[in-house]
């Protein structure tokens, strides 16, 4: 049985929505009336994406688009591109040590690695990461951590690393990601951030 949908006088994208709802609801034979050629073309694209066929027949004041088929559309693989970094969340992290929490040192360092990796998986990068004291070992250390930080930097996250601390730990030549910075800049970033989280 053909399901009929009247979308005459309905602007884009309403005809597509109505047809999509019907198809999603299991309808495999529908006729949708539209009043413009663009709606016809949009509907034939919809039909194609759902592995169905569309045929348009002129009627007075528009077209009847007849959509039939087995259905079962698959979504095509997508090209994903990272966003132009717009810091909607506007969060800055202050990282003053190379591990998370108190307790077993090895667990703490492993948690830090996971924490930085998890940051890379979020849609929005933090505005900045500020490394001080033993925290500076992170951007000067393990490849996996450096990779996470590089990914964040690429997404627009600013990475500032305390120069005094690098010198203190003899890591001045070891920094692999981020910018060597100073107390003045770090305080300024904290001041500018809507939210500073100490890790």
């Amino acid at each position: 049985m053909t399901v009929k949908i009247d979308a005459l006088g309905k602007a884009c994208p309403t005809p597509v929505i109505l047809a999509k709802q019907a198809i999603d609801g299991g309808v495999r034979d529908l006729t949708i009336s539209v009043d413009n050629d663009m709606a016809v073309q949009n509907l034939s694209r919809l039909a194609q994406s759902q592995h169905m066929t569309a045929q348009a027949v002129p009627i007075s004041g528009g077209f009847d688009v007849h959509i039939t088929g087995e259905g079962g559309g698959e979504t095509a693989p997508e090209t994903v591109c990272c966003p132009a970094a717009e810091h909607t969340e506007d969060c800055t992290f202050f990282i003053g040590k190379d591990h998370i929490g108190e307790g077993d040192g090895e667990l703490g360092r492993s948690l830090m690695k996971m924490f930085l990796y998890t940051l890379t998986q979020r849609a929005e990068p933090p505005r900045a990461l500020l490394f001080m004291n033993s925290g500076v070992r992170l951007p000067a250390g393990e490849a996996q951590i450096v990779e996470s930080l590089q990914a964040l930097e690429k997404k627009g996250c600013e990475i500032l690393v305390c120069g005094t601390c690098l010198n203190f730990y003899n890591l001045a030549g070891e920094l692999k990601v981020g910018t060597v910075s100073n107390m003045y800049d770090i305080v300024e970033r904290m001041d500018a951030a809507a939210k500073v989280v100490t890790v």
Partner: protein
Amino acid sequence: MASEIRLTRLAECAGCGAKVGAGVLAQLLEGLPTHTDPRLLVGYDKSDDASVYQISEELALCQTVDFFPPIVDDPFQFGQIAAANALSDVYAMGGEPKLALNLLCVSPEMDDAAVRAVLRGGYDKVYEAGAIITGGHSIRDREPKYGLAVTGFVHPAKVLRNDRARVGDVLILTKPLGVGVAVTAAKAGLADEALVRQVTAQMAFLNKAARDVMVRFPVGSCTDVTGFGFLGHALEMARGGEAAVVVESAKIPLLPGVLALAEMGLLPEGMYRNRRFAEGHTHVADGVSLAMQDLLYDPQTSGGLLMAVSEKDAPALLRALRDELPCAEAVGYVVEKRDGAYLMVT
């Protein structure tokens, strides 16, 4: 609260999709008397992004105006986007915006808080651009609309026209395509939250950073990709230089998920207008999907800059751009025009 108003419900066309098609515009302007002035470096006969008028050896004024109905529901974000879009034309000429005037149409459904939020959004972006709003004009209208008239400065010898593609140039695009499709899908309730967030952030993102990097390199031509779609703007570039542009569709940056949405037919009317305008000049290779083609014709609101730069300078420019704009990509190149088509999509 202002945000309770769904602004896009008050508008028939969204954003740059409301633009009169390029073909129609050319017809409308035909035959109108034009006065010439040797100091007018770029006028409207060139369909460039902004007009440019030379004041002195060192200084030219760059003027443009742009406004449109709501493209997002939130009035503050709408203000930001409309302002970023209007400012972009000055950036596309290689200029710096200095002064701006508000253009505002207020509909009866908008309360004072919503109107103020639109204006605050505009101020926010103009301030970020380093320019100032010096006044404006508002009228009552059935549909809300907002935008700016912008005046900027540019060095007369460093004006970047939109129609100077040279054979051997590489084309670089700074923002992903798919804005029109994403906004149409959002209107249909079929865009996921991440896409809506990303397209909103992208539209509000100023082309200032792209411009500031661009002027450090010997870029030969530039335009911003807006209502006429990527191919419409690429066509202007190719035609002016009597050259052909090869578009490498596989390299085109896209907003996440828009390919699937385009396949479903969630396409704005402006896409069809743009297609009709540029299709006759475009040769599409076999294997480029219909959805990909549709995205190349998709009207963009506050889209990225499209720059033509020599092959030699392209890698350094692209690297510098990516520091600020991770999506920037070399998407095509300019060749001699042989078989009649200005655009070749591969």
